[in-house]
């Protein structure tokens, strides 16, 4: 097991390195240089200092090594738009906000989705199933920004129950969490339903029934665990869903999170910021995938024991 973990961590580092390198060269290959639009208005001397400050006067390979060296120390450079602000500190400042909204949405959404999926599987082809599948299909087909607009319109503008946007009080989290969590609800409801139907058809469920276990005990002890297990593997993709969904929701609800920051950096051509945040997102996702894989391994005895040998 230890050997497997070490191997996986090595692969992860290799992947991170590759992704960071690719990102660097891609960003450098953008037509025109990153500072062009900023530097246009500056006098010649200031311009040179400006380029020197970001190391852009040096050959590409030197820039690359400097960038990689910075990465090792978690230094992602300095923002172009806001001189003096380091990318790392901006990420550190904004990501907890996103993490709070996204995490809450993920936990609540997953929980509700799992429950709904179970209901749909157990009441297959009866009205609860149809209701759940309707919600799931809606969640999978309505774009986030449409849902967000709708929510703002109904609950903030028409009913006035909740603030339409803003940040600071717990009430500000309600609408964004609903909008972000809706996707997870849809994904999990569908996934758990099919996974549970699959498990219910397994022979060992018949064995459990033949033992005389009550239907409740059969579901709780035999069906649930085996149908939830494969759902762990899609957890990393719902993390991504929540993070990318945040690009939209944070903008619409004016939440000062990393998603809002990322989108505004893109629109403002703040390349160091875009590059740093991209690497951050990639790293976050790669690490999450690894964590999810490890969790899966701990939960599933088949894999746990196979990797021991």
């Amino acid at each position, binding site marked *: 097991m230890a050997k497997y973990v070490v191997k996986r961590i090595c692969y992860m580092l290799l*992947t991170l390195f590759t992704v960071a390198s690719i990102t660097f060269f891609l960003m450098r290959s953008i037509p025109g240089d990153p500072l062009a639009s900023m530097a246009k208005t500056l006098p010649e001397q200031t311009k040179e200092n400006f380029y020197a400050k970001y190391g852009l006067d040096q050959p590409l390979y030197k820039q690359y090594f400097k960038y990689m060296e910075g990465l090792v120390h978690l230094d992602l450079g300095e923002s172009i738009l806001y001189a003096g602000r380091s990318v790392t500190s901006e990420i550190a400042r904004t990501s907890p906000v996103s993490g709070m909204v996204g995490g809450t949405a993920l936990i609540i959404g997953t929980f509700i989705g799992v429950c709904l999926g179970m209901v749909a599987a157990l009441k297959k082809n009866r009205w609860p199933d149809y209701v759940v599948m309707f919600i799931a299909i809606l969640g*999978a087909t309505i*774009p986030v920004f449409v849902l967000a607009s709708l929510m703002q*319109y109904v609950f903030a503008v028409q009913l006035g129950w909740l603030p339409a946007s803003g940040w600071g009080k717990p009430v500000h989290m309600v609408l964004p969490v609903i909008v972000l969590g809706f996707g997870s609800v849809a994904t999990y409801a569908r996934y758990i339903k099919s996974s549970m139907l699959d498990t219910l058809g397994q022979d060992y469920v018949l064995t459990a029934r033949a033992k005389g276990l009550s239907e409740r005990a059969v579901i709780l002890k035999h069906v649930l665990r085996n149908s939830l297990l494969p759902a762990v593997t899609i957890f990393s993709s719902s993390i991504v869903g929540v993070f*990318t969904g945040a690009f939209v929701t944070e903008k619409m609800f004016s939440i000062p999170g990393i998603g809002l920051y990322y989108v505004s950096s893109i629109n403002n051509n703040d390349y160091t910021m*875009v590059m740093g945040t991209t690497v951050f997102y*990639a790293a976050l*996702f790669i690490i999450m995938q690894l964590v999810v894989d490890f969790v899966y391994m701990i939960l599933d005895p088949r894999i746990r024991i196979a990797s021991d040998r």
Partner: protein
Amino acid sequence: MQNIPIEKFQITGLNENSMEAASRPQVGYLRDAWMRLRKNKVATASLILLFVIVLMVMIGPKLSGYAFEQIDKTARNAAPCAKHWFGTDKLGRDIFARVWISGRVSLTIGVLGALICAVIGCIYGGIAAYFGGAVDTVMMRIVEILISVPYLIVVIVFSLVLQSKGILTLILAMTITGWCTMARFVRAQMLAIKNEEYILAAQALGVRPWKVILRHMIPNTLSTVIVSITFDIPGYIFSEAFLSYIGLGIQPPNTSWGVMASSAQSVFTFYPYQLFFPAVMIALTMLCFTLLGDGLRDALDPKLRK
């Protein structure tokens, strides 16, 4: 026991004809799948609705009598009325015409994106599965690295790099890693089929390799590929809308459902209909493709054949 005439006790023996007649008529695979798809009301309705949408996208812009970029200064932000069926936007452009023109872009992106990814994915996955060994390992390692970065982030970075403004660069940005999932999927499918006993049986009978690939591998992979293309199309439509929303998608004067929705979103509280039409089109199209995909999957699944 009642009286039965003795001639009834003549042994007539086997009846070769009725022996097999007991079983139901045999139906070909595709025909059977098509019949089952047609029996699925939801899938059929989705298919019909998709036809209607495609038809409207082709002829719709002509119907309203306005060009999609034509500005009507007298009617800005007009509500739906007899003159402008779906109303107008803030520049006074006819939304009915724009919705269908946008549909062309969105559908093109969705369908082309999914097809390109399917083709690349099939070739890549097929090669990896066919050669196996070190080739497979290296190819799959590459895919794993590409897949490890969130898809939308990749698309964002590439659309920045490509400075994408039009459909083609956008599709390029979207497909640059989009094929990876398909490649992985096709490879897994191919490997699974390769180990199936009927392939071994075919090989044992001396069927030539290319015939095995043509007769068994491709048809058995194809059905699942078709299903996943159907599921991918709404994904690309959605990604395009998403990119347009954050300002990286199609640029004016071109338009798409995503562009329309994102520009309508800021005035949503005052003119909800401006968001309503493109949003409904996105949702409806995605819904139809998803439901059709569900139906296709069930119809093509040999395990469900009765």
